[in-house]
């Protein structure tokens, strides 16, 4: 049976339905086990000592008093990893400081003890000899020649000689001649923007339980977006064989990219190895803010030219992203994506990756893209305003299509941006009347999506049900959507399939749940694993009927004879074949592994109405609409949830969320009281329109949907606020004090 990746139109029976979520009962009854719910006999409690300084040389660490405290079973520092790790591993140095503390909250030591109280007491007995160094937390300040230098040797070959050392990478994308394009414009606007760092804001703090046995084999339970990546990173840092470390992902209380790496897991393993007992380590909320990745903060200059009839003649952006104390801000994705919704003859984007004394940034939903879209979409909006043009019509006029050369050099295959713009244009929100102090904003957004390493197995159970095993934590409803695709392909009801998340010993390497990849890539592998099982079931039926395998076809969940020489045989259902499997050759299973490709890029258009209180600067979101291309919505409830979730995170980032550093380089607002994320009472219902332009690279037409929805909100809300107050806002978040300042300025 040929396995065909390409999209073919079909009538779906299970895919597209709003099915009951398999984790629903567990989550509403408290039965679901999250990272901090794991326990083990004899378990110790771990705590981490963190630097109070933004930048300090560590001249020595004396742990003797802590180790002597009754109840303390192990203390670890960087030296406990040093014999095993790969040199200059930024992830390890981020988990445990080496010779310098690089940011407020950087881990310098950890303790495992018989109780939380003993562990906390032990932390106070650890003596760290710090030599406090000058620090820098602002991206523009960090790029100056006289800025404190974090690393002497982190700059790569892309950075021109003589550039200050905190500038570590340079990227450039684009095509055409932007100066010639600006010369063709009737109006050119150039603005500078700033966005502050936002945390992913997951409700569940990082948590893990490590159990390292005396045989050198270990188990690790943790909340993560990718148990295989955790295994790879931890095994490397601890000098273990991959097969000696089994990682099991717990239920996850949000990740949004922030749980695609490790922070505490190798520390818990090192403590367990040293203590010879299981060790549980759970971050406190303040630790989550101080020492797990927020996204980058940015400073962006953007210049766009437009003719008086709304044609964009050129666009140029220079983007500066600080990604904390290590190289790796997502500036290249910002530079690639900001202009991606548009069909431009002349475009240039230059990105600078900068290090500062802040926590190492971690991916956050479409990493790097929202900030770039904010700058580009704000300038387009201002051009429309200045030229008296309809901002939707201008976007429709300039939008990318199949065949458009993207700013990052790839010619688009079939995409659905124009459809999202037209969906917004025909939605009642577009023509809803606005009152005093109210404004409307629109913006587009883009994200790449990708596929990646994927391995799936399914077992045909003896009663005709199906046990499906996948290797990606269910962060956005994947157990439901995988079960739907499995049921669809096998031709059985959804409730006959149970999808479980395998630990690392059970399946081949699965890439992290990121890049909006799971519904696309794991779905693809699930469909093919089902096809593999179907082939075997057709073989069993053929053997029973005494006809060739190729004289049997699979239809509506049954093997049927097909072709002129197949003879007359009643169809055999999946359940009937399963029931006699032990008499016909043994258990039946399907399997598939691949490095999936063909993930279609994704576009969205957002529309928002806001009302400003001119006295307080408070912004109320009145209406919010997301229109996004999902290719094919496998489970519309979850797709809408992804649209809404991304929009809400974007609303929070736009209006309130920011990392605030004091003059001392310390984070001032490491808690949800002072770092304000939106709650349900802050929000209207987020309206959604699912656009379905099938991805030609997936048999069901699926595109990833998890990330694009956070790309347009910053710009859409800024445009709405700017219209409401009559002044162009250029900094995110637009917190009440900033709006009052703008109104008074």
């Amino acid at each position: 049976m040929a396995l065909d990746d390409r999209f073919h139109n079909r009538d779906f029976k299970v895919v597209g339905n709003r099915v009951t979520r398999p984790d629903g009962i567990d989550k509403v009854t408290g039965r679901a086990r999250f990272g901090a719910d794991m326990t083990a006999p004899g378990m110790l409690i771990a705590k981490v000592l963190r630097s109070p300084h933004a930048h300090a040389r560590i001249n020595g660490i004396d742990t003797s008093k802590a180790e002597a405290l009754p109840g303390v079973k192990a203390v670890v520092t960087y030296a406990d990893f040093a014999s095993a790790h790969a040199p200059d591993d930024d992830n390890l140095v981020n988990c445990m400081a080496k010779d310098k503390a690089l940011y407020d909250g950087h881990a310098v030591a950890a303790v495992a003890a018989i109780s939380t109280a003993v562990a906390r007491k032990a932390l106070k007995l650890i003596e760290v000899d710090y030599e406090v160094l000058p620090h820098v937390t602002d991206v523009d300040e960090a790029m100056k020649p006289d800025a404190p230098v974090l690393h002497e040797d982190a700059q790569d070959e892309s950075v021109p000689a003589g550039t200050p050392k905190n500038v570590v990478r340079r990227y450039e994308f684009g095509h055409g001649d932007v100066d010639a394009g600006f010369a063709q414009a009737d109006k050119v606007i150039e603005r500078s923007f700033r966005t502050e760092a936002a945390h992913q804001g997951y409700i569940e703090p990082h948590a893990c339980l490590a159990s390292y046995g005396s045989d050198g084999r270990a188990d690790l339970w943790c909340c993560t977006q990718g148990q295989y990546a955790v295994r790879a990173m931890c095994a490397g840092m601890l000098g273990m064989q991959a097969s000696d470390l089994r990682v099991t992902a717990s239920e996850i209380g949000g990740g949004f990219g922030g749980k695609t790496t490790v922070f505490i897991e190798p520390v818990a393993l090192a403590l367990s190895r040293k203590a010879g007992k299981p060790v549980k380590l759970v971050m406190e909320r303040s630790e989550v803010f101080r020492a797990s990745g927020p996204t980058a903060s940015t400073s962006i200059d953007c210049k766009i030219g437009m003719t008086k009839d709304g044609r964009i003649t050129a666009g140029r952006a220079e983007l500066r992203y600080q990604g904390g104390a290590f190289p790796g801000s997502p500036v290249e994705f910002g530079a690639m994506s900001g202009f991606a919704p548009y069909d431009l003859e002349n475009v240039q984007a230059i990105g600078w990756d900068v290090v500062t004394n802040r926590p190492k940034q971690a991916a956050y939903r479409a990493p790097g893209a929202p900030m770039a879209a904010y700058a580009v979409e704000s300038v387009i909006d201002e051009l429309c305003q200045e030229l008296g043009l309809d901002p939707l019509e201008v976007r429709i006029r300039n939008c990318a299509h199949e065949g458009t050369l993207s700013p990052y050099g790839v010619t688009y295959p079939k995409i659905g941006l124009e459809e999202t713009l037209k969906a917004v244009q025909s939605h009642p929100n577009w023509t809803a009347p606005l009152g005093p102090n109210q404004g409307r904003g629109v913006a587009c957004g883009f994200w790449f999506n990708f596929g990646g390493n994927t391995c799936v197995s399914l077992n045909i159970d003896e009663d005709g049900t199906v046990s499906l095993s996948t290797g990606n934590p269910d962060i956005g409803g994947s157990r439901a959507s995988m079960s739907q695709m499995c049921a669809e392909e096998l031709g059985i009801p959804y409730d006959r399939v149970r999808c479980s998340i395998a630990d690392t010993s059970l399946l081949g390497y699965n890439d992290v749940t990121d890049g909006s990849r799971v519904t696309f890539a794991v779905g693809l592998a699930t469909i093919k694993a089902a096809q593999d099982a179907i082939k075997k079931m057709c073989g069993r039926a053929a053997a029973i009927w005494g006809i060739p395998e190729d004289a049997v076809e699979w239809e509506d969940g049954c093997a049927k004879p097909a072709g002129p020489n197949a003879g007359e045989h009643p169809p055999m259902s999946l359940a009937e074949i399963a029931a006699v499997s032990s008499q016909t050759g043994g258990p039946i299973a399907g399997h598939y592994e691949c490095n999936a490709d063909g993930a279609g890029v994704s576009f969205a258009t957002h529309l928002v109405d806001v009302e400003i209180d001119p006295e307080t600067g408070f912004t109320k979101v009145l209406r919010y609409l997301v229109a996004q291309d999902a290719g094919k919505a496998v489970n519309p409830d979850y797709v809408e949830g992804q649209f809404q979730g991304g929009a809400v995170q974007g609303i929070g980032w736009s209006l309130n969320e920011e990392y605030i550093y004091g003059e001392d380089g310390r984070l001032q607002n490491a808690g949800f009281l002072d770092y304000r994320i939106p709650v349900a009472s802050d929000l209207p219902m987020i309206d959604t329109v699912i656009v379905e332009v099938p991805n030609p690279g997936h048999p069901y037409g699926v595109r990833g949907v998890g990330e694009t929805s956070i790309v347009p909100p910053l710009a859409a809300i800024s445009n709405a606020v700017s219209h409401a107050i009559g002044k162009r806002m250029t900094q995110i978040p637009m917190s009440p004090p900033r709006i009052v300042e703008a109104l008074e300025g």
Partner: protein
Amino acid sequence: MVRVKIWGSLRTATGGAEEVEVEARTIRDMLNALAEAHPGLAPQIDRGVSVSVDGAIYRDSWLTPVEGAKEVVLLPRLAGG
């Protein structure tokens, strides 16, 4: 021969050329040939790249054919959240 588009900041390694030609059947051949013909590209290739072949983006697919492709683009290694 395969024509490969090079992103802007890497063009210092190709003498300013936006596209270069190398002899290659697969992505692996292509990356090896690029690094050999333009040694300045090697550090970035070693750190990790993605490759778009006729609009489909690959991260680690050494064996994907590039021979006969209409468009091959070297990209930074993609990551997501």
